[in-house]
């Protein structure tokens, strides 16, 4: 291809695993088919700059040691980074205690704002660690954050 993706760290942004998640979209659904049940809350987030949006629904249930994110589903439209990030997030937090998801969201936000200084730990973040490269592209940080902000908001209200 003629566009040389290697220039300016583009491959760090569009890693294969990122593009793969953008296609697979784990948790993507039509929310009309998932009526909001007990313990569920829905958050709609929008990036006013580009018009990207996500509607994410989190189901929180009581676990033996406190509330747990039982399920996450979402719908929305956006760039590959925002779609991939929502997919990775869904995979990461399904079945995870709320206390831990709070920490994960806070850590993700910190890494995204670090302008490349902080890398996400693969042990802790799974596939989402591949989004570390986004933080160098400050114009794209909001794309990566969109689903995480929606989860934070939905879980808080669930």
């Amino acid at each position, binding site marked *: *291809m*003629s566009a*040389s993706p290697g220039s300016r760290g583009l491959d760090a942004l569009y890693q294969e695993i990122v593009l793969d998640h953008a296609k697979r979209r784990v948790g993507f659904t039509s929310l009309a088919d998932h009526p909001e049940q007990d313990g569920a809350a829905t958050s709609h987030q929008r990036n006013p700059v580009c018009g990207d949006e996500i509607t994410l629904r989190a189901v929180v249930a009581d676990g033996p040691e406190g509330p747990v994110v039982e399920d996450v589903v979402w719908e929305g439209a956006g760039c590959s980074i925002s779609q991939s990030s929502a997919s990775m997030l869904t995979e990461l937090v399904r079945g995870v205690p709320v206390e831990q998801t709070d920490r994960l969201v806070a850590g993700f936000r910190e890494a995204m704002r670090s302008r490349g200084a902080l890398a996400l730990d693969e042990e802790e973040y799974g596939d989402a660690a591949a989004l570390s490269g986004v933080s160098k592209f400050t114009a794209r940080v909001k794309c990566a954050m969109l689903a995480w902000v929606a989860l934070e908001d939905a879980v808080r209200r669930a």
Partner: protein
Amino acid sequence: MSAPTTTAPAGAAYDAAAVRAEFPLLSGGAQLPDGAPLVYLDSAATSQRPRAVLDAERSFLETTNSAVHRGAHSLAAEATELFEGARETVAAFVGAQPEQLVWTSGATAGLNLVAYSLGNAAAGRTVPGHEDAVRQWAPGPGDEIVVTEAEHHANLVPWQELAARTGARLRAVPVHDDGVLDLEAAAAVIGERTRVVAFSHVSNVLGVVNPVEQLVAMTREATGGRALTVLDACQSAPHLALDLPALGVDVAVFSGHKVLGPNGVGCLYGRTEVLEALPPFLLGGSMVTTVTLEATAFLPPPQRFEAGTQAVSQAVGLAAAVDFLRGVEERFGEGAVAEHERRLERRLRHGLREVPGVRLLGDADGVDDGTVQRVALQAFDVEGVHAHDVGQLLDARGVAVRVGHHCAQPLHRRFGVTASVRASAALYTTEDDVDTFLDALSGVRAYFGVGR
């Protein structure tokens, strides 16, 4: 003026590279990480400034800066002279008289000025002696304000709010699939209850030149001359020779930073009778005659609309920008810039049509047979790849384009997309710029694994 430094016989072949050399940012100023030359195709968002503009602003600040229209020291007098001289220069650029040109901070401020002025008139605040004129345009319950589906948010939201404040109804003229305004629908929408018709000269997404005189005539006929016509000239001012009085609109706005000038300055043009009748919007110093604790009498236009300290060095810079544009015309002959931009428009549009998976927004067939006029900006959608991702790949090749909704969400919705990519040219854009852009774009779908 210091713009074109070499002389060539008028009518010499247009030399975009030579013009570009007058723009420091485009000739080495903007440093790309890997040393690639910058291909700047985002002039519809903001244009770059020639050295002449930067020098004019700096020189004013270094030698003449002081408060205009107040104080008696000679520096203030000199600054006032330059400020008012700039008004004359910029007014002449759009065919207007100096007193018909109001300085604003930009087109958005100009449109809000008009909308709020009409809102004030609707609330009964009128200019003594001009009550009848302004009451024709001030909307009330049951009246209608007309915009188009293609408007930038700046020429939509202020009218939505004016409608909400006054009980009027906002109506929109649709565009056809090819981006051309639906004039039949316009004739049906504009009617007896219409108080304002606000539309762009050139859409910032579609690039199509709207038939201003026809819309003005249609409005006059349908309303018996009662409605105020408002023109957003942001995207035409940099590309078309403007004679606003000849176009017949009541008011028009444009921004300095889109016509090679500074940020923070723009203009509102108004027909003399219109500006005289409009009540002020922003209130304060420099726009009054007699102030008592109870009441205030206002200055005539344009000062009536210029409350507070003005962007003086920016106004001087904007005058230098229009001088520069005129200088380029003189250097290469009348119409040379327009011809160059027409070539760019064609190369861009035809080149994009050849790229698989690309859908143009506003691909009017009428351009090639001359029935529709466009400027050299083109928005498009790449099937299977989000606009943001397209922009990122182009950026990696040193190509700067705009991605997103370009402040025209309703228009994007009408074309079934939330975002698009927009490439836009100016007089300093070269054919090589367009070719580099097209080449970079041709690899985008393969990179994201679509269309194979």
